[in-house]
């Protein structure tokens, strides 16, 4: 069934509300500035379960996040939407300093299966305060699961997994630029297990490691590399960052000998740095060239579109990164 990422999310949430009476939905919008599309995708499901849907809430991220943790501790399965991920910064204490600890610090006696949803990423004009990618900082919190689906199918499967199966706190990071992307979603197919990466485009010459919005950009880059340079690039979508699938990543790098990481996080201390470190620790001997990171420059996100593009991870920059890594002249055809 052809559906957008946003429609897939709405469908997953509706089905989860249908299936489990402990699922509750609270918070702000899911679709950012795509309000009309969100209303179409979410409206019927949320209206059907109005008693378990609290979408008219005060702007009180800390209070709401704490309440969501409390609901989870008391046996509920809350989904809390922060809308823009930057707003989640105001609600971090319960998400960082309460929920991820409880299972471990109680010796497994208590757990907090809540899902925090947010739209992360550089979104076009979001400037410094609406463009955060939180996965790097949250990746440093043991006990927190971080999902960054890049496709409608994964958004559907992973959201259902969060709401119906996960036993621990989860941050589900969507991306504004992905919300209207669509694909044919097989609703009856068993979703990939959480913590398993996907090889979205097999290749033999270089591994491009991506997640979230850099997945479609890396696929585009791989097509250009094939067409213009005769380079066969393998594109890996990490899908989930915690848990993190080292096996798929390392097998690919051992096969190709070259690794280019495409990551919308800032370069310093980003997800890209962790991926590079894992490759260096585990697959150093297989590398034929140093690992390369194509990541967002270490500056607050500027407002102007031209400036934003200048510091962003684009398909063109991924192509250039691959060419430089393979020792090919950058900018020239095959």
């Amino acid at each position, binding site marked *: 069934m052809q559906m957008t990422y946003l429609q897939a999310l709405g469908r997953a949430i509706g089905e989860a509300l249908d299936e489990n009476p402990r699922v*509750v939905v609270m918070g702000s919008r899911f679709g950012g500035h795509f309000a009309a599309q969100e209303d179409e995708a979410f409206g019927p499901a949320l209206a059907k379960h109005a008693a*378990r849907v*609290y979408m008219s*809430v*005060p702007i*009180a991220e*800390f*209070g*709401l*996040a*704490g*309440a*969501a*943790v*409390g*609901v*989870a*501790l*008391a*046996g*509920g399965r*809350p989904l809390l939407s922060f809308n823009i991920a930057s707003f989640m910064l105001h609600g971090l*204490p*319960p998400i960082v*300093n*309460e929920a991820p*600890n*409880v*299972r*471990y*610090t*109680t*010796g*497994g*006696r*208590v*757990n907090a299966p809540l899902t925090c949803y947010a739209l992360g990423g550089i979104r076009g004009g979001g400037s410094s305060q609406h463009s955060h990618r939180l996965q790097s900082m949250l990746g440093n919190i*043991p*006990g927190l*699961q971080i999902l960054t689906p890049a496709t409608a199918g994964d958004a559907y499967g992973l959201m259902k997994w969060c709401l119906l*199966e*996960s*036993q*621990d706190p989860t941050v589900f990071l969507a991306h504004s630029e992905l919300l209207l992307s669509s694909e044919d979603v097989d609703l009856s197919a068993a979703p990939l*297990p*959480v*913590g*398993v990466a996907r090889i979205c485009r097999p290749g033999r010459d270089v591994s491009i490691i991506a997640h979230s919005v850099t997945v479609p950009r890396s696929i585009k880059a791989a097509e250009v590399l094939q067409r213009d340079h005769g380079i066969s690039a393998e594109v890996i979508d990490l899908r989930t960052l915690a*848990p*993190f*699938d*080292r*096996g798929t990543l390392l097998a690919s790098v051992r096969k190709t000998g070259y690794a280019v990481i495409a990551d919308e996080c800032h370069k310093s201390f980003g997800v890209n740095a962790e991926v590079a470190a894992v490759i260096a620790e585990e697959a150093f001997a297989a590398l034929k060239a140093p690992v390369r990171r194509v990541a967002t420059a270490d500056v607050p996100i500027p407002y102007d579109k031209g400036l934003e593009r200048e510091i962003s991870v684009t398909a063109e920059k991924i192509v250039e990164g691959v060419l430089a890594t393979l020792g090919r002249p950058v900018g020239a055809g095959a």
Partner: protein
Amino acid sequence: MTEVTSACGYLRQMWLIRVFEEHVARLSKAGEVPGFVHLCSGQEAVAVGTCAALEDGDYLFSSHRGHGHFLARGSDPYGVLTEILGRQDGLCGGYGGSMHLVDAQRGALGATGVVGGNIPLCAGAAWAAAEAGRGRVAVVFFGDGAGGSGVFHETLNLAALWRLPMLFVCENNGYAEFTSREEHSVVKHLSEFCAPYGIANTVVDGNDVLAVQSAAAPMVAAARGGSGPQFLECLTYRLSGHYEGDSMSYRDKAEMAAWVARDPILRLHRQLTELGVEDAALARIEADVRDELDQVLARAVAAVPPAADRVLEGVLGDLPGRESGA
């Protein structure tokens, strides 16, 4: 007679907390406690009076100064003490410690090491309780220092907005860590913040357990009956420092002496004497508690620490399809 029986029970619980904290203080001074401890000596009446108004199944959220809340709620003193000592038999297996006590069987879903951090969690539990229609109430204990945090105010709004079955219990001991109330706020009582939200509130003498219980019981009943959140402010004083080892240079000796004279245990002792209970009977309550806790102490210090080879386990629940340790 039942009144006297109940009051003797409160006296026993207050002695249990007081003597328990004496043991913790000694253990801390001897270097036997791995982390910080924040004692509630002097504040026993708040925990005991409030918990007396609760029923099985009600939720409780505690603070960094929480030993008394757990003991008053009926947690096993051995489980609490071994947790504080970081032992395998602790309420949390030695992984949480003094500030992270949890006793889910008694509805005590969390204590927090961050001032104010427990307040919104309690609102969530109250929300879940209301949604499930189980007639449960959720109570949260916090100090007056929490009034300085934004989330305290956020949660007042949420609780009022959603008419949650929640009891806020402010243990106003006059100090936010090392800073007196006058120095960190122009608002004398935290319950004053209830007015704009229409939250029912009362200020009581927090060193009078009978007064606390008398105030808490109708508030718990009101919350349980659907009247929305309630706010009980108990004026009290901690007889120890903010943490064990605190020099307390910020406190006036005369002020300390005045509060020592208002000790909640002495107060109840006096009240019971006035009701005709003999001194010997009251002394026996204390002696019995001391005997009981001597035995708990002996067992606790001999308890084994958690197994080090399991330190990497249990961060996340088991999931199908996940590599072990991934």
